[in-house]
């Protein structure tokens, strides 16, 4: 079923992941004065003028306001709870554009003395998660061929005579993660690969000339 009635005044924009992430934005963290955001709070019953600044989730005047890349205003606590409800399917509650924690912009009005990033307040901001990059492939610089980087030397002989030398790379099962250059292991493996290369070449010569 695909019958959806959206608010008429909500422009349906499909703003998907294209913006610079706001994760590295810095804010002056003078957490001294009044902690309340946005003056008139609670939103009286008959204040139609304020409706432009109502959170799209709680329908109250937005507190700790953030705005999505598609231009929709929310209280950060409300939006956070929405994102938590659907961690695998984070869409804007108004227009269903893709949104995420890092793609909302905190709004700072003049009245709010505390210029702390609202995203840092209620749920403590998760610390950055960093994984080591995949190491560059190729540790076979033997005979000067592999110095360029990704060169890998595979040497295989099928049936004749015993199939001794299959792929050099998997020798000892250590090929999955090449050691970083400069370590002792790197030196050893480099030496080993050169020895094997020499043996392979000798074997070839033996095949051809004997």
């Amino acid at each position, binding site marked *: 079923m695909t*019958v959806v009635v959206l608010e008429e005044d909500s422009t349906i924009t499909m703003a998907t992941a294209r913006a610079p992430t706001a994760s590295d934005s810095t804010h002056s963290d003078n957490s001294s004065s009044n902690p309340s955001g946005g003056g008139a709070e609670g939103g009286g019953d008959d204040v139609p003028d304020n409706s432009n600044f109502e959170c799209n989730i*709680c329908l109250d005047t937005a507190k700790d306001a953030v705005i999505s890349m598609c231009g*929709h205003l929310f209280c950060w606590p409300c939006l956070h709870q929405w994102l938590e409800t659907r961690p695998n399917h984070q869409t804007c*509650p108004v227009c269903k554009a893709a949104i995420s924690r890092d793609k909302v912009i905190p709004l700072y009005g003049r009245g709010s003395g505390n210029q702390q990033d609202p995203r840092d307040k209620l749920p403590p901001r998760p610390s950055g998660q960093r994984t080591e990059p995949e190491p560059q492939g190729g540790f076979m610089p033997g005979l000067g061929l592999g110095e360029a980087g990704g060169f890998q030397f595979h040497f295989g002989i099928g049936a004749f005579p015993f199939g001794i030398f299959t792929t050099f790379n998997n020798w000892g099962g250590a090929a999955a993660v090449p050691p970083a250059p400069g370590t002792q292991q790197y030196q050893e493996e480099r030496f080993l690969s050169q020895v094997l290369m020499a043996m392979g070449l000798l074997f070839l010569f033996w095949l051809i000339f004997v």
Partner: protein
Amino acid sequence: MANIAIQRIKREFKEVIKSDEAQKCAINVELVGDDYRELRGEIAGPPDTPYEGATFQLEIKVPETYPFNPPKVKFVTKIWHPNISSVTGAICLDILKDQWAAAMTLRTVLLSLQALLAAAEPDDPQDAVVAKQFKENHSLFLQTAQYWSHVHAGVPKGNSEFAKKVRCLQDMGVGEHQALVALSSCNWDVDRAIEQLFS
């Protein structure tokens, strides 16, 4: 109930009451009890459909986690529609399930349901029997849906031939609604309906 849920339902309640659609009597909500946990919705059948002139009652249950999860809505008034169970009134509509968004309100839900009445989705049915009739014998579906609107949802005029067949079954001691269901699901073939009822 969580504070945000009550606050929101109160606001939405007023929004529906004040809305243009409510002025035109297209949608309405009423409180059931006084804690905003359960509401009674009402939608008018859209024009140029077999539901024109009808008024459908809906049961709306507001969960604790509203508005982060959708309200539970079902038809109280019996209706003949591919996406609504003719037995339980359960509704198959994506925005009441996984496509719910926190910015949707009672008003948009009621309007979506009204739109559903005007644009059925027989390929994603809730009631397979109705959906089959919708696809294979559309004119009979329209007549049946109109007759259900007449019997259950306050439309003044109804098909007299259908009324005769229902009365025929009623004379055999079958309840009116039971007779209506049997005849509707047997494409108004009286013999097959009798067979279905008494086998």
